[in-house]
């Protein structure tokens, strides 16, 4: 029936369409070709010739049902909107604790912990230049530090995202605090946000510490441990965001992320884990660029492809595993230093694309991120942006509201094809691990980054305030910098020294010995030893240093 109606529509409108085409070409004789960031040509008009209702069942279906295009839950945002997960981290654990309490009061429903860059790199604060300590994240090195971070907060009742990469010392420290407080690990919920080491190597972010083969092993250890002992923790977040921030196009970012998830699933299966059990806990994390419709299509296509991969490639029947659960963050790369308040408009547009794309969790960037570490006032506007979109603009009243748009559906299909072709390329290279080992993915991402820079340079891609619409600025919107006071950092260094002196040294040594043994054996779960070490009072830096020594340090894989 649907098909018949569509055909009729086409017959009736053939003449009208030709007439429009003629008028269009007459009035716009020098129309320039438009291409989106993923390289898909965008036409001026989409009609039932591009997509029509005949494809409804195959392409769309209903929310919570395959092919999942319309969303992973039957109720979607109408039932539950999204987690407002704001990244915070500044200064000492006490600074963090105070800001955390204020954010919880302001309505934040899930929290995250951003450690200091020294922590990201795998060091304790006494191993790096004190000038940099605590300037862009929290200085968490010990079980005591973690205890202070969550002082007055019931860690069994709040979802936490930990933003450190493997060997996941922050989760280990959190579990150590839970044990100290008598909170069952069954009640510890949240996500290991930076568990996707492949994305770290591709984007060459600071988040890698161990060599690729060691990373590969530790991730599977971590997943196995969490599945057994911390059942409500998501041990894996597959991160497309890093790749897109590093220059990947939206289609590339989605494709490489799906390939990465395939790789991790295969690695887990090779360790005799059951995909019916571990796949439902896979989560994803994406960038939302300002390329509005392209981003919406990216998410819809990705959702469709994931259920296909899970069902066809892995033959998984547990429908929970078909759900493409993702957190998304508005893209910092799109923000400009020039006329920084414009960034509020950019973040709003990006957030809308993510919401229409069906996200489960959202972080909106502060407008001043491009000027310095975000200020508290700017972070507040970022949260309000989400509240306005949800409660004032009513974006969540209807599920997948853009479905059926000729353009959006056509673009979703085209993005899907593009992504599938890229997945085929990576498959042909022997999978994601091999492709990254050989630098294939890094080359493609670097090429895209240079291409985009070229478009901005030539003005082909307009950036308001940068290569067009420039204006004089008075600088009055700049917020004062927030830097930790030197004496508090000194205090923190003193505390670390006393912590190290006061702990039971024999327990520390024995924990480190066990960690060393695990690293050199194939049969012992290394992450289990990381947790035991945290409990025994071994510091973050000591744990990472031990594994780096025993398992090999990660070297940057650079290509230009």
């Amino acid at each position, binding site marked *: 029936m649907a098909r018949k109606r569509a055909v009729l529509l086409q017959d009736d409108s053939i003449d009208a369409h030709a007439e429009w085409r003629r008028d269009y070409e007459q009035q716009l004789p020098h129309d320039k070709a438009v291409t989106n960031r993923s390289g898909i040509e965008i036409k001026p008009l989409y009609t039932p010739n591009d997509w029509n209702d005949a494809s409804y069942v195959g392409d769309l279906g209903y929310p919570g049902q395959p092919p999942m295009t319309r969303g992973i839950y039957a109720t979607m945002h109408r039932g539950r909107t999204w987690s407002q997960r704001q990244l915070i981290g500044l200064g000492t654990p006490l600074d963090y604790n105070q800001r955390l309490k204020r954010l919880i009061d302001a309505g934040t429903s899930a929290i995250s912990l951003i450690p200091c*860059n020294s922590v*990201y790199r795998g060091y304790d604060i006494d191993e790096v230049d004190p000038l940099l300590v605590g300037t862009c994240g929290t200085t968490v090195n010990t079980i005591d530090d973690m205890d202070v971070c969550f002082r007055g907060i019931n860690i069994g009742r709040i979802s936490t995202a930990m933003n450190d990469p493997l060997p996941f010392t922050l989760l280990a420290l959190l579990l150590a605090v839970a044990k100290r407080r008598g909170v069952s690990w069954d009640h510890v919920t949240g996500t290991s946000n930076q568990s996707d080491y492949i994305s770290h190597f591709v984007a060459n972010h600071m988040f890698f510490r161990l060599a690729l083969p060691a990373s590969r092993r530790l991730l599977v250890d971590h997943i196995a441990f969490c599945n057994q002992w911390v059942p409500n923790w998501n041990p894996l977040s597959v991160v497309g965001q890093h790749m897109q921030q*590093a220059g990947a196009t939206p289609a590339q970012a989605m494709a490489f992320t799906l390939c990465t998830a395939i790789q991790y699933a295969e690695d887990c299966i090779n360790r005799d884990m059951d995909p019916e059990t571990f796949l439902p806990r896979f989560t994803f994390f994406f960038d939302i660029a300002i390329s509005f419709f392209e981003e919406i299509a990216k998410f819809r296509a990705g959702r469709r492809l994931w259920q296909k991969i899970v069902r066809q490639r892995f033959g998984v029947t547990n429908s929970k595993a078909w759900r493409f659960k993702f957190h998304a963050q508005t893209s910092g790369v799109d923000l400009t*230093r020039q006329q920084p308040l414009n960034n509020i408009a950019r973040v709003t547009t990006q957030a809308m694309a993510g919401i229409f794309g069906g996200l489960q969790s959202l972080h909106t960037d502060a407008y001043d991120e*491009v000027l310095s570490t975000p200020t508290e006032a700017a972070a507040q506007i970022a949260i309000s942006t989400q509240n306005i979109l949800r409660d004032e603009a009513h974006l969540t009243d209807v599920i997948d509201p853009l479905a059926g748009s000729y353009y959006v559906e056509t673009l979703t299909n085209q993005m899907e094809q593009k992504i599938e072709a890229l997945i085929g390329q990576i498959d042909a290279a022997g999978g994601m691990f091999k492709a990254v080992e050989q630098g294939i993915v890094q080359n493609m991402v670097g090429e895209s980054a*240079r291409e985009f*820079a070229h478009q901005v340079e030539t003005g082909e891609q307009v950036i308001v305030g940068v290569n067009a619409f420039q204006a004089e600025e008075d600088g009055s919107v*700049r917020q004062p*910098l927030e830097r930790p006071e030197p004496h508090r950092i000194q205090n923190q260094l003193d505390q670390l020294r006393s912590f190290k002196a006061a702990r039971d040294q024999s327990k520390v040594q024995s924990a480190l010995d066990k960690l060393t043994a695990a690293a050199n054996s194939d049969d012992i779960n290394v992450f289990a030893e990381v947790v035991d070490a945290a409990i025994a009072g071994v510091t973050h830096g000591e744990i990472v240093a031990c594994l780096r020594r025993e398992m090999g340090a990660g070297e940057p894989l650079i290509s230009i």
Partner: protein
Amino acid sequence: MTDVHKPTTRPIKVLVTKIGLDGHDRGSRVVAAHLRDAGMEVVYTPPWQAIDAVVKLAMEEDVDVIGLSCLATDHLLVPKLMRALRDSGLAHIKVVVGGIVPDEDEAALLDAGVSRIFHPGTSLDDITETITDLAGLSLAPNERP
């Protein structure tokens, strides 16, 4: 101090590097590629270089200009690098900084001897021209010795 001035008929040599703790290198890679395409010889390093390593490298490679890419708060280390370069007799090497440098910190970097700070949104051609001027040489890619 190196006694003899450099020959002038040769490509400009630039070191593109990152000090401190941040690892985001999209910007430095794009800039490095652009400088190469402008005919320069670009020594490229991974992030996380120690200050003494950068000094040794700049000396061994005899570069004309050092380009530092700074995110997070790594720019706070730049004055230390400038001092180390001076102490090693490399005051003749010009240093430019690109990335996120808050306005409040700009003066401290310029006072320390940084020649120019490129904020986000700077055009690549602007960067190339500035480096060319600083190197005190004309770009003559086809005029190879």
